[in-house]
């Protein structure tokens, strides 16, 4: 038997028990079982003496358990069980599970995230014992996760039972003073520096107390929890049965128990050191919030306000230091939501290093958004939508890129994919290096507003808004940080619904360049000739953005001129997604021109304010626009509400500018837009688009020796994709045909705007990909250039223009001969290997097959359509655009053609030319 200078192991275990009881009585004073987490949090934050007693309670209890097990083993070795009367031996065997209950109930009384889960598990596990289980679980833990009952069973029932049985066994009421002294000293020393933490629920790792981690592991491996419960009962029964066994059998049983205990200890170690979030393997030291945290209990702390600051119903230590933070707006005031709701960290620590240890300095990134913006009480329904939205998945870009590289069939390219799942194929590495920075999942890792050089950031990409004060505070902070004297700024950027165009600009100034085009900026391929210093360029005429990109001022969109922001047209459902994964942008976009501009002679579609969906109602309430509430609101063709399109009682519509709150009259379309059938297939943009950025050719190659940068992993990689661009031109878009969703089973089409999407050579073999030769692609892309003007493009710019018709730049000439007229086209640019001019989409009065576009539902004009367009073009060679004849041609071209003058020379072979009967162009 082990006998120390302070007594036996049993004496020490009993002493630890007594110290735990006495310190428990002390800690019971500030503890409230109905507000377990809150009261413990308040203790941890502002009551060092109570922290000491809590620590003493904890450490003496752990010591009691360890010493009890050591004592049991020490006495079983003797063997001593034969010397103990049967009744006492039974009660001692029962003492062990009761002691475990005492320990576990102490853990449950933390009331933190781990404890709440543990309470559910233990209740359910016991309830699964046939017959008596449900009632026993209710007796011990209550029926509704009640901590008050657990408190009674912990502080009274179990404590009394253990004390009674121990006193009966030890035959003395009090342990030796020396044993109490040494336990108090050791546990007290630990208590000065190690405080068990509390799990506030933000950490996804859920773990039980250390001595139950093995049980947690067993429960993971077995589908029958009852096995674990009955296994525990069997161990106690075996202990009790030892007394009745023959000595040799008893020794074997004790050996088996020792092996079991060692195996269980190993399982506890697995649970402690190998398990991470979602029960995945994550080797490392335990980092859970519930683990003991090092730090001198009585260390100097900032002066605590009385009462303690509370956020989200819980004491929050962050607010002790970070006082007076402004700028976040009403909904996100630190006084209401605290700091940790968004930034994480340890809310119960006042020591900076500890408090900031698990902090997220820049929350909102999609990788952490569910734990911040998307947590239960906040925007839980929105974050998953954003994660599935196109700005996060880049599905269209990924699908098209793979199709262009020949890695996906057009059908495969129509399936939703996610940029985060990119592999290492040529197409995917091309995306990783050239495209993967522009998606919401790209992590924002620097403070400050997004710009052309800093993109992504999840929720922050749109909603984080720096005003002058916040920018100045950030500037000062960055400066002071370099000097090592930085204090966290108190002027916080706003989390706002007032999303300015600048937020969109950071990504949408590239590719289709809709954000820059909208504001009337056209990117130049290279600085204007003779430019020595970009800074010397006139800011009135030129705009320089990140990476020395030079933009020249051209015509802005009329909506920009009238003060409309991107968010005035684009709805929250469009931008943040509708919760579904879409393959392409067209599937997620909802708004159209006629949602605001009713076709002439018709009323704007609208819905009563009472029918608004809850999200629109919330937005409306947040916006707080002045003036009377609208009775009706606009709606998209798909039935989505447009909160800022309001319709008064006379049916007159207006748009409320979302950020400014003032109103703009909404006019119906011009009558000419809906006259006749001549232009009925035309989209609004086909006529009203002033210009589109066109890049007529480019070349993408892979340099195996170069050093590239993978935007997905933010790491340098060997091998570099290099894009060589041709000159950019701001010119009228090409027109083509786009398929529309069928209505009543009838396919529909619309004439729409297109630009060269990828007329390029892909040097795939240089990366070792397939096919073994360079691939040439001639693809046009549908683009809404966002350069709408009130005035429409001219008739000739469509009917007599080779770029509009898809032939590319050149001379399109109408020659009249005796047998009729004849169109001729002389291209301006070189002819490429496929026989077409470099910038063409289709051949002059020709047709193309195969891969035509970045999407499958569009095409250049067919030969028949070209002929019909050119037929009107032939008229325009003689008749003025605004002449009565041309106006009539729009209303009823067929009858116009039938009554044409004998002097008219129609193109040979034109529809209607021979018979005199016209047809719809």
């Amino acid at each position: 038997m082990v006998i120390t200078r302070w007594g036996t192991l049993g004496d020490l275990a009993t002493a630890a028990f007594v110290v735990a009881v006495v310190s428990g009585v002390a800690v019971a004073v500030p503890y409230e079982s109905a507000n377990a987490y809150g009261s413990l949090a308040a203790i941890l934050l502002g009551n060092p003496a109570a922290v000491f007693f809590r620590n003493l309670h904890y450490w003496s209890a752990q010591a009691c358990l360890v010493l009890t097990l050591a004592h049991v083993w020490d006495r079983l070795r003797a063997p001593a069980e034969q010397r103990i009367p049967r009744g006492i031996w039974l009660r001692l065997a029962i003492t062990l599970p009761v002691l475990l209950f005492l320990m576990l109930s102490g853990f449950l009384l933390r009331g933190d995230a781990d404890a709440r889960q543990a309470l559910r598990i233990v209740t359910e596990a016991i309830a699964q014992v046939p017959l008596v289980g449900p009632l026993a679980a209710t007796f011990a833990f209550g029926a509704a996760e009640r901590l008050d009952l657990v408190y009674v069973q912990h502080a009274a029932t179990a404590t009394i039972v253990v004390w009674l049985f121990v006193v009966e066994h030890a035959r003395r009421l009090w342990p030796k003073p020396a044993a109490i002294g040494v336990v108090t000293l050791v546990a007290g020393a630990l208590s000065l520096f190690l405080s068990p933490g509390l799990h506030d629920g933000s950490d996804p790792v859920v773990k039980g107390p250390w001595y139950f981690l093995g049980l947690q592991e067993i429960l993971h491996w077995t589908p029958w929890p009852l096995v674990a419960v009955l296994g525990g009962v069997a161990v106690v029964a075996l202990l009790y049965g030892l007394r009745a066994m023959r000595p040799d059998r008893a020794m074997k049983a004790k050996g088996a128990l020792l092996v079991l205990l060692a195996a269980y200890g190993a399982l506890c170690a697995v649970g402690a050191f190998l398990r991470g979030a979602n029960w995945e393997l994550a080797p490392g030291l335990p980092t859970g919030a519930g683990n003991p945290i090092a730090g001198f209990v009585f260390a100097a702390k900032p002066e605590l306000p009385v009462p303690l600051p509370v956020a989200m119903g819980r004491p929050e230590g962050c607010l002790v230091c970070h006082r007076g933070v402004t700028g976040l707006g009403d909904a996100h005031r630190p006084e209401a939501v605290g700091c940790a709701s968004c930034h994480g960290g340890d809310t119960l620590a006042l020591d900076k290093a500890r408090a900031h240890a698990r902090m997220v300095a820049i929350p909102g990134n999609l990788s952490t958004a569910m734990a911040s913006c998307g947590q239960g009480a906040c925007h839980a329904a929105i974050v998953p939508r954003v994660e599935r939205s196109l700005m996060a998945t880049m599905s269209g870009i990924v699908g098209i890129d793979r199709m262009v590289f020949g890695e996906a069939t057009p059908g495969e390219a129509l399936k939703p994919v996610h940029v985060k799942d990119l592999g290492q194929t040529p197409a995917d590495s091309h995306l990783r290096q050239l495209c993967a920075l522009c998606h919401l999942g790209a992590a924002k890792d620097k403070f400050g507003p997004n710009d052309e050089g800093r993109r992504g950031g999840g929720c922050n990409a749109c909603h984080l808004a720096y005003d002058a004060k916040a920018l100045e505070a950030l500037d000062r902070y960055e400066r002071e940080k370099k000097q090592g004297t930085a204090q966290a700024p108190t002027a916080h950027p706003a989390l706002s619904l007032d999303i300015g165009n600048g937020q969109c600009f950071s990504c949408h100034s590239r590719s289709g360049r809709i954000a820059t085009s909208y504001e009337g900026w056209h990117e130049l391929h290279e600085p204007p000739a003779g430019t020595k210093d970009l800074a010397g360029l006139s800011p009135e005429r030129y705009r320089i953005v990140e990476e020395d990109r030079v933009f020249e001022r051209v015509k802005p969109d009329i909506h920009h001129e009238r003060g409309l922001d991107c968010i005035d047209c684009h709805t929250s459902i469009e931008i943040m997604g509708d919760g579904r994964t879409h393959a392409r942008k067209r599937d997620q976009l909802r708004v159209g021109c006629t949602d605001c501009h009713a076709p002439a002679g018709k009323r704007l579609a609208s819905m009563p304010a009472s029918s608004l969906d809850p999200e629109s109602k919330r937005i409306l309430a947040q916006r707080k626009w002045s003036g009377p509430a609208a009775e009706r609101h606009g709606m998209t063709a798909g039935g989505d509400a447009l909160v800022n399109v309001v319709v008064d009682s006379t049916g007159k519509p207006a748009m409320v500018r979302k950020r400014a709150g003032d109103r703009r009259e909404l006019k119906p379309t011009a009558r000419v837009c809906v006259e006749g059938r001549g232009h009925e297939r035309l989209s609004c943009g086909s006529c009203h688009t002033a210009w589109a950025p066109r890049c007529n050719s480019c070349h993408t190659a892979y340099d195996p020796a170069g050093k590239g940068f993978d935007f997905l992993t933010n790491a340098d990689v060997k091998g570099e994709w290099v894009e060589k661009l041709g000159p950019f031109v701001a010119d009228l878009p090409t027109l083509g045909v786009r398929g529309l969703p069928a209505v009543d089973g009838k396919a529909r089409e619309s004439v729409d705007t297109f630009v060269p999407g990828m007329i390029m050579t892909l040097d795939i073999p240089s990366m070792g990909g397939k096919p073994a030769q360079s691939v040439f692609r001639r693809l046009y892309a549908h683009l809404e250039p966002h350069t709408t003007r009130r005035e429409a493009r001219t008739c000739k710019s469509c009917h007599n223009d080779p770029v509009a018709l898809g032939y590319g730049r050149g001379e399109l000439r109408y020659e009249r001969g005796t047998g009729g007229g004849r169109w001729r086209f002389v291209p301006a640019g070189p002819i490429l290997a496929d026989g077409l001019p470099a910038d063409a989409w289709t051949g002059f009065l020709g047709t193309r097959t195969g891969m035509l576009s970045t999407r499958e539902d569009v095409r250049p004009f067919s030969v028949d359509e070209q002929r019909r367009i050119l037929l009107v073009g032939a008229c325009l060679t003689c008749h003025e655009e605004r002449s009565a004849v041309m106006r009539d041609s729009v209303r009823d071209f067929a009858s116009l053609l039938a009554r044409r003058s004998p002097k008219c020379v129609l193109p040979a072979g034109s529809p209607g030319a021979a018979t005199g009967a016209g047809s719809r162009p």
Partner: protein
Amino acid sequence: MSFNLPLSEPRRKFLRKVLSIAVGASLAGLLVQMLRRERESKSPAPVSIPPDVSAGLTIIEGAIVYREGEGPIRAYAARCTHLGCRIDRIAGDEIVCPCHGSRFRADGSVVTGPATKPLIALRIEPDPKTGGWIARASA
């Protein structure tokens, strides 16, 4: 305590035993009744699902809500069928129990254990007040 009845010692002992068992059994019966009533009186609170709930998987209070596109809503108790842990996380397209790692599909079925039973479906009723739904435990 003794009863001064004119009874022989064995008979007295017997009666005392019978009386003790009767009183003990009655008290135990009352205790069982109390515990049963206590268990039955506690049922999970209904969960209000807003009409604009996102497509896919969402956790709302004690319910896991699954919406397929604009289609019908399904809801399950956010309670692991293994040992009753509160499920508070979605991992991609799966529902993961944080306590012992059981994984469930969006239709509530088990991907990997230890859980063996699918998530418990909740009854969905339209909520005329909000235009959304109320999910409650099936009777």
